[in-house]
């Protein structure tokens, strides 16, 4: 909620002390930049001998930290969010990571900003501070200087619209491909379950009934047994179908929506689950289903791997975003491995632009936070 408000409302004029502090920070950032630039140049030069590689990794990290501090400052003063533009670092070794950083356009934007901040940052910060302290009108002037400077730098630090769009298209293409994959895998599973389960039992059932019909006159005892067997396999077929339907769309979810569905999940879970769910209205059915299965997966993981005895579910809907958090009191150390449960949750939610954040330090606890944009419809009566 807070982030949404910050990114929407126009920034208010910063108070005098905030201005002074901001000016000071800008000057310090300028100074830090002056130190960092030669380091960066030396690192690049030393790449020829291997020493440059770790140095480069280090200086690029420092640069990133510095740029982030500027982004945070811009967000605080201007009230506009400058999103993190970096690519995710997925590689294992130092070289992989370095390669990702060096091919990331955001790194070059950071370098451009570094040059700008070296030329202007220290001077602007100093001037703003001096204005504030010396000139009687400085109280009015220095915020203007600071805001102007930050507007310029954040336009350098922000990704271009094309880049944002390109990344978005990439994300959509990936999530669409994954959705299609998951969907067709799911359909294959349903087909197989029907084929091996209910369908096979119905075949056996009708065979038994046919036999019983034939035997009726000759061997009433035998036909009675066959009938009893038929009833048995009819009830097993029903059990199969029930299990299958639960896996496709749980009846409680259809009846009671997400709130009731999560309550039922908590009751059926293998650990003690505390449910704190507040939501007026219902999300679209596909979202309900995705969240339900994601929470089910999280609880199953908790029961299987965490050795926790208790867990909790927390759900709220605020400003067009649905936030669901599942936590347990277990041993932690959960990681999203390909094909694993956490990865499954990520894929499920990615189809709705949802994100999953996992915090699971060794020793616990594990907290899985899921967030996805969605609107609620009013409750069905």
């Amino acid at each position, binding site marked *: 909620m807070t982030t949404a408000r910050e990114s929407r409302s126009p920034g208010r004029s910063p108070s005098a002390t905030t201005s002074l502090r901001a000016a000071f920070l800008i000057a310090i950032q300028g100074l830090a930049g002056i130190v960092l630039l030669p380091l960066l140049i030396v690192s690049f030069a030393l790449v020829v001998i291997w020493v440059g590689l770790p140095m480069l990794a280090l200086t690029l990290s420092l640069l990133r930290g510095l740029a982030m501090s500027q982004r945070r400052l811009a967000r605080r003063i201007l009230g506009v969010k400058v999103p993190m533009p970096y690519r995710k670092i997925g590689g294992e070794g130092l070289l992989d990571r370095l390669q990702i950083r060096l091919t990331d356009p955001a790194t070059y934007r950071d370098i451009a900003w570094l040059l700008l901040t070296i030329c202007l940052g220290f001077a602007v910060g100093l001037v703003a501070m001096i204005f504030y302290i010396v000139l009687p009108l400085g109280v009015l002037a220095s915020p203007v200087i600071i805001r102007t400077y930050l507007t310029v730098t954040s336009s350098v630090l922000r990704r271009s619209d094309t880049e944002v769009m390109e990344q978005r298209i990439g994300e959509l293409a990936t999530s669409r491909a994954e959705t299609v994959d998951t969907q067709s895998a799911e359909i294959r599973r349903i087909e197989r379950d029907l084929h091996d389960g209910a369908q096979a039992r119905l075949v056996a059932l009708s065979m038994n009934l046919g036999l019983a019909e034939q035997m009726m006159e000759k061997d009433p005892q035998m036909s009675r047994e066959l009938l009893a067997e038929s*009833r048995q396999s*009819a*009830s097993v077929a*029903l*059990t199969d179908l*029930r299990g299958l*339907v*639960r896996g496709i769309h749980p*009846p*409680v979810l*259809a*009846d*009671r929506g997400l709130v*009731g569905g999560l*309550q*039922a999940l908590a*009751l*059926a*879970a*293998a*650990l*003690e689950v505390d449910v704190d769910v507040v939501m007026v209205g219902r999300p679209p059915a596909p979202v309900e289903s995705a969240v339900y299965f994601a929470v089910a997966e999280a609880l199953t993981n908790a029961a299987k791997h965490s050795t926790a*005895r208790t867990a909790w579910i927390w759900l709220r809907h605020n400003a067009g975003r649905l936030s669901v958090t599942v936590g347990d009191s277990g041993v932690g150390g959960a990681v999203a491995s390909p094909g694993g449960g956490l990865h499954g949750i990520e894929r499920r939610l990615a189809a709705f632009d949802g994100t999953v954040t996992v915090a699971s330090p060794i020793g616990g606890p594990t907290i899985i936070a899921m967030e996805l944009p969605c609107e609620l419809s009013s409750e*069905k009566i």
Partner: protein
Amino acid sequence: MRVVIGEDLALLRDGLIRLLRAHDFDVVEAVDNGPGLLRALLNHQPDVAIVDVRLPPTFTDEGLRAAIEARRQVPGLPILVLSQYVDQLYARELLAGGNGGIGYLLKDRISDLDQFVDAVRRVAAGGTAMDPEVIAQLLARPKAAAPLASLTPREQEVLGLMAEGRSNAAIAGSLFITEKAVGKYTAAIFGKLDLPVSEDDNRRVLAVIRYLDQ
């Protein structure tokens, strides 16, 4: 014995009516939707009602809601709820009032006619008839909270069968122990759950409610 039926599938409704009439029940009304069901339950106040969870107009849990509402207005009104699925959440809601006279069974169970009619009579008499699958779901959870955790596995088993609505003789039969032993187990269960001394039937219902409410 006067019965009201709430079931929207004509095939099943007619089957139920035929089945119950054959066993000398008097079916006073059979309705096929939620609002009609609530009206019928309150008008007739039958000796027992048989209700499908999913009914028109919403095809969600109309039947269940009608049953709970009717029992709110007429406490203890005996209702046997049938469903394609059983869920603990619903079992708890049905028992939440603290009264007996509640059954919650899978529709499949109708196929065993004798047991089904037996269950209807048990519910009419103020007992409970919980589906074995509800009990199985409960037993699958290793998290029994106090005071249920203090029950021995055998006592838990007896309590589960009690929740299904079995008599002591039936419990003895299915666990291959004597009726006297069952009596001892039930006494131990009542003691551990700290249930007030009262009629045996009533204590059984209370024990089942504790059990499902864990």
